[in-house]
Structures are given as C-alpha cells and as structure tokens.
C-alpha cells in the first residue's frame, strides 16, 4: 500500500525538480531593478544617437554612467538567464536536451555579461 501522501508523491515532479521560490523571488527583484535601469538605458542610447567614439568615451567615463551601465548589464544578463532557464525547463522535455540547454544558457549569460563589463571598464578606465 502506498504510504506517501499525494503531496509528497507530487513534490519534485515539476519541470524544475526542486523548490523554486528563491529563483522566483530573484526574478522579481531583477525585474523591478530593470524598470528604472532600462528606461535610463533607452534615454542614454538616444542621447548617443549620432555620437562618435569620442562622445561615447566621454559618456562611459562619467562615474555615474559607468555605475548605471554596469548595474544595467549585470541585471540584464542575470534576468535573461533566469527567464531562459524557466523557458527551457518548461519546453525542453528530454533530460539530456534540458541539461545541455541550461548549460548553454548559463554559459552565454556569464560570457556575455563578463565580455560587456570588460568592454565598459576598458573604455571607462582607459586602456
């Protein structure tokens, strides 16, 4: 006879296989952070329409802009990884495919995030 309760039986059978409240909460936090950051980013890019390299260097070198751009980039790649992670869990059903896709998603987020940060620092702090 089955001694486990229906809840105990169902736990861990979702696509993520484990508790997700911290992931869910972090996704909400990064989304809230991105609201002002992305609006700032759009306004900044608009201010750089037609700007040459020298204008861009001046803009990135401003300490406030460096800070906000770094925050924006980090939060973008964090939030993007969290979103793609859930999409992969929901739609990729084969275990091998899912793990491969999750590794690819994480690798892209770290690669893209760190490449962006290095590019910002290189310009902001001079090379």
């Amino acid at each position, binding site marked *: 006879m089955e001694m486990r309760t229906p809840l105990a039986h169902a736990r861990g059978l979702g696509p993520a296989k484990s508790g997700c409240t911290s992931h869910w909460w972090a996704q909400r936090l990064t989304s809230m952070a991105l609201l002002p950051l*992305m609006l700032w980013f759009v306004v900044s890019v*608009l201010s750089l329409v037609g700007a040459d*390299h020298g204008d*861009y260097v001046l803009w990135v070198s401003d300490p406030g802009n460096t800070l906000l751009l770094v925050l924006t*980039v980090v939060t973008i790649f964090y939030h*993007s990884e969290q979103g*793609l992670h859930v*999409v992969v869990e929901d739609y990729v059903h084969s275990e091998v495919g899912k793990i491969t896709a999750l590794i690819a998603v994480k690798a892209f987020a770290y690669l893209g995030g760190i490449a962006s940060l290095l590019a*910002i620092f290189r310009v902001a702090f001079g090379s």
Partner: protein
Amino acid sequence: MTSEKSTTGAAKARPLSPHLQVYNPQITSVLSILHRMMGVALSFGSVFLIYWLSSAAYGPDAYGRAQDFFGSPIGQLILLGLTFSLFYHLANGIRHLIWDVGLGFDMPMLRATGIVVVFTAFGLTALTWIVAYVRAGII
C-alpha cells in the same frame, strides 16, 4: 515524462506543456505568450549589446563600423524589434508584478490592463524612434 505508471505498468503518455494548440486565442493567453517570446527575443538581442559595447573597446574604427551597422536598414529593423520587445516586456512585466501582489485578476481588469500594455508598448516605441530620428536629423 513523469514516472507514474498505469495499472498495466506502462508509462502513461500524459500531455506535456505547452498546451497552446488546444485553446482558442484570447487576449490573456496571447499577451502571456508574447511576454515570453519578447523576453526570449530580448535575450538573443543582448548579442547586439555585447557587440556595441565591445566595438567601443576596440577603438574608433570598430565603433564606427558598429554605428554603421545599427544605422543600416537591417540594423534599424533589429533595433526596432528590440525596442518594441523591451517596452512590451517592461509594461507587461509591471502587470505581472501587480498580479504578484494579488491584484487585477478579474476578467474586465485583465482585459483593460492588457490593452493598456499593448498601447504603452506601441506608444513608447513610437516616441523612442521619433526622438532618435529627430536627433539623427532625419526628421
């Protein structure tokens, strides 16, 4: 696939997500699917953010080539798509945050906020591109 077995011992072929094709499209479901699609599109679009920031690190020539690319018809089309995706995902994201505190679930409110999101996305996209074109001296 779950490990649940039927009485005969064979694994049951239960339907797996996404169950998109079994429903008629409604504003609630269509906007929800769009939210994910725009989020995925923005993630792919981050490649262009990496390219833009990296080009500046390589110097004036590379930055100029990036500017030329983003100013070309295909570059502008990509940026237009990303602009709309961003504003749609941002506006609908606010809608999600309001749901997360337990508000706005009745059907009239769901429809109303959905329509607000769509108009906000189109409006902010248009505003952004008008400002961009004015600054570029095109209009």
